[in-house]
C-alpha cells in the first residue's frame, strides 16, 4: 500500500488505540491515523473539517455519551455528501448478528469484530483498507 491513507479511529479504549496504531504502522508507513476517545468530539472535527476528511473511519460501538450507532446515524444523515460518503467500519468487540444487521441498515461499510490476536488484527485492517480508495 503506497497511496497515503488517512484513517480516523473512534474508540475510548486506550489499549485498543495503541494496538490499532501499532497494527496500522506495521501495515504501512503512509497511513495517518487520528484517534478519538469520544464520538461527539470526533463528529465535531468531521463537521468543521479542521483536520481534513479521513478516507475511512473505524468506529467502536460501546462509547461513552454517544453510542457508535448514533454517530453513524448522524454522519450518514448529514447533508454534506463529502461527509456521508466516508466509509465507516464498525470496529467493536461485539459479534452479535443484531449489531451487524443494524450497522448495515445504518449504512456502515464493513463490520470488523475486534480480534483476539495481533496477526488477525493486522490482516483484518489491511483487508479492509484494500477496498478503500485512499487520497481522493
Amino acid at each position: 500500500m503506497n497511496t497515503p491513507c488517512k484513517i480516523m479511529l473512534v474508540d475510548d479504549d486506550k489499549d485498543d488505540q495503541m494496538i490499532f496504531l501499532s497494527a496500522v504502522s506495521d501495515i504501512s508507513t503512509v497511513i495517518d491515523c487520528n484517534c478519538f476517545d469520544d464520538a461527539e468530539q470526533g463528529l465535531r472535527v468531521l463537521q468543521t473539517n479542521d483536520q481534513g476528511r479521513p478516507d475511512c473511519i473505524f468506529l467502536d460501538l460501546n462509547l461513552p455519551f454517544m453510542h457508535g450507532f448514533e454517530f453513524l446515524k448522524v454522519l450518514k444523515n448529514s447533508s454534506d455528501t463529502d461527509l456521508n460518503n466516508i466509509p465507516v467500519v464498525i470496529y467493536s468487540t461485539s459479534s452479535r448478528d443484531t449489531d451487524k444487521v443494524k450497522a448495515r441498515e445504518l449504512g456502515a461499510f464493513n463490520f470488523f469484530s475486534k480480534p483476539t490476536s495481533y496477526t488477525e488484527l493486522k490482516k483484518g485492517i489491511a483487508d479492509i483498507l484494500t477496498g478503500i480508495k485512499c487520497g481522493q
Partner: protein
Amino acid sequence: MTTAKQDILSIAPCAIFSFTEEGLITMANAYCCKILEYEEDDLTGTNISSLLTVSGRIFYQTHFYPLVKLHGHFEEIFLNFQSKSQKDIPVAMNAVMNDTGNGPEIVCSFIPVFNRRKYEDEILFAKKIAQEAIQQNEALESIKRELELQQLAMDKQISLLKFQNKEILQLSDIITHDLQEPVRKLMLFSNELLQENIDVSLKKHALAVIQKSSLRIKDLLQNLQNYLSLTLHNSEKQKVSLADVVKNELKGLKSAYPEIKVEAAIDALPAITGNSQQLHQLMHHLLKNAFEHGAINNQLHLEVHAVIVKENVFSSLEDKYKYDDYVKLTIKDKGNGFDDRYNDYIFNVLKKLDVNSDTAGFGLAFCKRIAEHHFGNIKAESVIGQGAAFTVMLPLHDV
C-alpha cells in the same frame, strides 16, 4: 249565611258513622250510605262486621277495635268495606271513642281511597326496581373494584416485565461489550506474550494490560452479582423510616470521606412500606454520588427534601388513573453539576460522566433499579455550575 251543623253532616264529602261497642251502627251520614250503597235506615242497627270484607273483618278484630279501645282513638287506618253490591271499598279511616251517657260509642269518619292500592303498587314496583338497580349497581361496583384490582396487578406485572426486559437488554450489552473487552484483551496480550523475541517494554505493557483486564473482569462480575441479587433474593417489604435510612447512610459516608465537610439540611422524612436493605442501598448510592461529585473544595452543601404528593399508581396501562400517596424525595447538592443532556444516561449500567474515575458506573443504575422495583421512579436534574438534584418518587404504601 253559614251551613248548619246538621247540614254539614248531610253534605260533608266524607263518610261519618257511629256504632256501639257491640258493633251495631247507630248513625250513618248520607255520604257513608252512598258509598256503601245502603239507605240510612238500612244501615242503622246493622253490625259493622257485616259491612267489612273477610280481611277487613279480621283487621277489625285484631287492630281496629283493640286500638280504639286502648287509646280512645286512632287515625289513618286502612281497611276494606264491602258495598251492598259486594264491591270492595278501600277506605282510610279515623275513629274516636265517645261516651254518650248511654254507654260508649265509636264515631268514625272515612274517605274511600280507590287509587291508594294502585299508588301503593306503583310505589312498591318503583321500590323493587330501585332495589334491583341498587343491587345491580352494587354488583357492578364490586365487579368494577375487582377489575381495577386486576388492572392494577396487571399494570404492576407489565411494569416488572418492562424493567426485566430492559435489564436483559442491558445485561446482553454488558456481556457483548463490557465483559468481552477485557476477555479479548487477555487473549490478545497473552498471545503476544507467547511470541518469541518479544520486546521487553511490550512484554511489560502486555502484563500490565492482562492484570488490569483481570481486575476489570473481577470488578464487573462482582458488581453484576450485587446488581442482580439486589432484587432477586430479597424483596420482603416492611415499614421503613426514611429519616433513619438517611441518618445511617450519611453517618457512614461521613466516616468514609473524612476530608469532606458536610452541611446538611434535612426535612422531616416519612416512613414508607419498602424493602429496608434496598432503600438503604438507594440512599447510600445517592448520597455517595453527592459526596463524590457534589462537593467543591471538600465542602458539601446537601439538602434532603420530602413532600407527599398524589401520583397515578398506574405506570404502564394507558388511560388508567388511581391516585395514591407518594413521597417525593429530593437530594440536592451545590456542586459543579452536569450537562442536562445526560439526565437519563447516568442511570444506565456502567455509564458514568467522569470516564477517568475508578468507579464502575453501577451506583445510579442501582438506584434506578431499586426505585422501579418499588414501583416508583428516579430522575436527575442539573445545571452546570449550579449543582445537581436527584428526585425519587416512592409509594408511601405497598402498591
